[in-house]
Every structure is written in C-alpha cells, then in structure tokens.
C-alpha cells in the first residue's frame, strides 16, 4: 500500500507501475494516470498528472526520468517528487500553490524496456531495446534520437555505440510518444525537465551548438535559483549552464527539442554523484539526493509563476 512503499530503495519496473496505479487510486483529487503509448517491447508508457483539478487550462511542467536505463536515481527521484507533492500539499503552502496553479506530468520511467533489462540482465545498459535486423547490436540512445540537429556532433551513427542516434529521428516509440504528447500540450507546458545521472549539473539548451538561447537571462537566473535551492539542503554544489559548454556538445537531445518546440524552460539534471559511486549510488543516498533535487525543481516551477 501507499503508506508502506519504501521511497529509499530502488524499485523494479513492475513495482513502480504498481505504485503508480496505487497513487492514482488513493489520490483521486491530485493524481491522474494515463498512458501515452507503448514501448518497442510493447510495455505501456505511463505518466502521472499531479495537480489540483481545475476547470481552467493550467500551465504545466513535464518531468521525465530514466531516459538512460542505468541511471536508477532518476526513477527514484520521480517517485520521490510525487510522494512529496501529495504528502506536502496540505501543510506546505508553496507546494499547494504550485499544485493549484500548475499541473506536473511525471514520467517515472521513460525507457521502460531498458530499465527492465538493467534489472534483469545488464546493470549498465543505457539505450532502448529496439532491434534493427540489419545490425546485431540493439538499442538507441533515447537522448540522441530527437528531431533537432539529429545525428550530428556528439552522436554516433553506429548501432553498437552507446550514443547511437537511431536509424531516423523519433525512430524509438518511446521518444515518438513523448514528443507527440509534448507537441500536443506545448501551449501549456512551460518547462521540460529531464532527470539523468551522474555529474551534479543543471544543464539547459543548447546542447548541439555553442550559442546563447534567446531567453538566456531568464533561464540562467532560473538555473541559478535552482542550484542555490539545491545547495541549501546539504551544501552540495551543482555546476550549471548551457549543456554544450558545461558538459559537451551532443545532438538530438530532448532539452534542445523541447526548447525548439516552444517550451521556454528546458533543463536536464545530472544528479549525484561526481564519480565515487557513479551509477551505483547507494540507496542510503536516495533521500538526500531527492530532497535537494526537489528543492531545485520547486524553485524552477515557482519561477514559472513569476514574470521574467
């Protein structure tokens, strides 16, 4: 049941999906669950909508976790966010205001096939699990498959590479489903957030080129406020800035696609750590990592309600 669910351990795909159904069943006023499509292996792509029901069209924030299968702290954070949003709605005025004025679309596991495979067979699988009969290697990097400067610098056209961009943009049903949903709701979605690991960074467009985005000042300020909020929890410092200069150039990324499709605040978080445990962040660090990241996400969301 909801009260017994342990948010400080990693959960398998099945456990996460059961948890989603349970959250939807027990929080009808704040939670709505739906599927936006199917994965390559036929699994449903579930999304939770979190927010106070309203007759009015509300602005929205999209958060996806687990684009890369081995980055388990991502799905852990998405679940943590939902739990905190619901549990703090009554007593936290900031969260209550956010849920009254915004909807949050939370996708706890974007790459469902890859995540399941990382639990059962290869802990360090990264890509999707699609198969191209012409090549023996499987999978596409779902963060190189978006239709923006697709398969140029920072992506690989070789199917066996971990940054393989795929045979064509949106070739991955998971990417296509999310892109379709975001396109459909783009007037209302003001922020796109994608959760990755590990590097302790907050990145924004562009990834594919060294150039400043038109609303640089507002996005830079939002990022600064977010990492300041994150730091206030445990003193953990995050670097932030354009992905191309802060991390490296890469093409076909989801944040560049979201930005180009009109979502003004697109971010990618690279959560803990910086290379002590890497993808194997211990369960004992789920709580502090998610607590600090929640502060950052709340800061970004609160910023959307102000004028910049």
């Amino acid at each position, binding site marked *: 049941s909801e009260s017994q669910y342990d948010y400080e351990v990693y959960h398998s795909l099945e456990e996460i999906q059961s948890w989603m159904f349970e959250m939807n069943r027990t929080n009808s006023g704040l939670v709505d669950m739906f599927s936006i499509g199917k994965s390559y292996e036929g699994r449903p792509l579930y999304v939770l909508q979190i927010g106070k029901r309203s007759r009015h069209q509300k602005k929205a924030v999209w958060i996806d976790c687990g684009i890369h299968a081995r980055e388990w702290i991502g799905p852990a954070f998405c679940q943590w966010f939902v739990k905190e949003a619901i549990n703090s709605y009554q007593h936290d005025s900031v969260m209550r205001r956010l849920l009254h004025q915004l909807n949050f679309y939370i996708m706890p596991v974007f790459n469902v096939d890859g995540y399941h495979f990382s639990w059962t067979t290869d802990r*360090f699988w990264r890509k999707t699990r699609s198969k191209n009969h012409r090549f023996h290697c499987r999978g596409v990097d779902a963060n190189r498959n978006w239709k923006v400067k697709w398969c140029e610098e920072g992506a690989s056209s070789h199917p066996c590479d*971990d940054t393989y961009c795929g045979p064509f943009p949106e070739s991955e049903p998971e990417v296509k489903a999310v892109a379709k949903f975001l396109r459909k709701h783009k007037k209302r979605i003001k922020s796109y957030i994608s959760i990755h690991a590990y*590097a302790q960074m907050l990145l924004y467009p562009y990834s594919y080129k060294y150039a400043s985005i038109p609303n640089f000042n507002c996005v830079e300020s939002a990022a600064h406020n977010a990492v300041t909020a994150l730091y206030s929890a445990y003193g953990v410092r995050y670097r932030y800035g354009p992905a191309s200069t802060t*991390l490296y150039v890469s093409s076909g990324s989801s944040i560049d696609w979201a930005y180009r499709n009109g979502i003004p605040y697109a971010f990618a978080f690279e959560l803990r750590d910086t*290379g002590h445990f*890497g993808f194997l*962040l211990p*369960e004992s660090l789920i709580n502090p990592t998610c607590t600090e990241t929640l502060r950052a996400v709340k800061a970004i969301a609160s910023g959307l309600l102000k004028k910049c």
Partner: protein
Amino acid sequence: YLYNNRYAGDQIFRITPSNDEEVQVLQKILGHMKVDFWQPNSVTLICQNETVDVHVKRNDTRGLHARLKQQHLDYRVFISNLQKEIEKQTGYRSSRKRR
C-alpha cells in the same frame, strides 16, 4: 549472485588526461579496447583535464593498468570490484526479499 555474477572482478577506472597528447594516447588505448564509457559517453568526447570513467572487464584490467603506467597517465580505480558494489546497492535487500 545478481546478474549471474557477471561483473565479478570488473573495475571502474578513472583517468584524467592532463594535455592534448595524453588525450590522444588515451583515445588510442581505449579506442582499441571493448570498454563501457560511464563518462563521458564516448571515446570522441574525451578532453583534457576532464575525468574519464570506464568500466573494464576483469580480463582486461591487468592490460589497461600496464598500458596506463607505461604511458605515465594519471589514473585510479574507483570501483575495484563492480560485482560487490552492485550487490551492495540492492543485492542484500532484494535477495532477502526473494527468499
């Protein structure tokens, strides 16, 4: 054992090339090995003074140690036995649960 103990003896190397020449040497070494890049995501993204984390299979660790020493490249092993670290992350709990 989780994952049929397939990661026993595998290691994660952290290598920091300090100049362009070391970058090229490292790209050459890793480019000829079957390693899994943890960060950055591929051999082409290696750049000076940025750390490179790679997952090396147990049969290749000795050879990589030797080559890195031979080239006087700065490196350390930040996970010396990957299987053990995986077991620590969820193994004890989930095996208990399965039992």
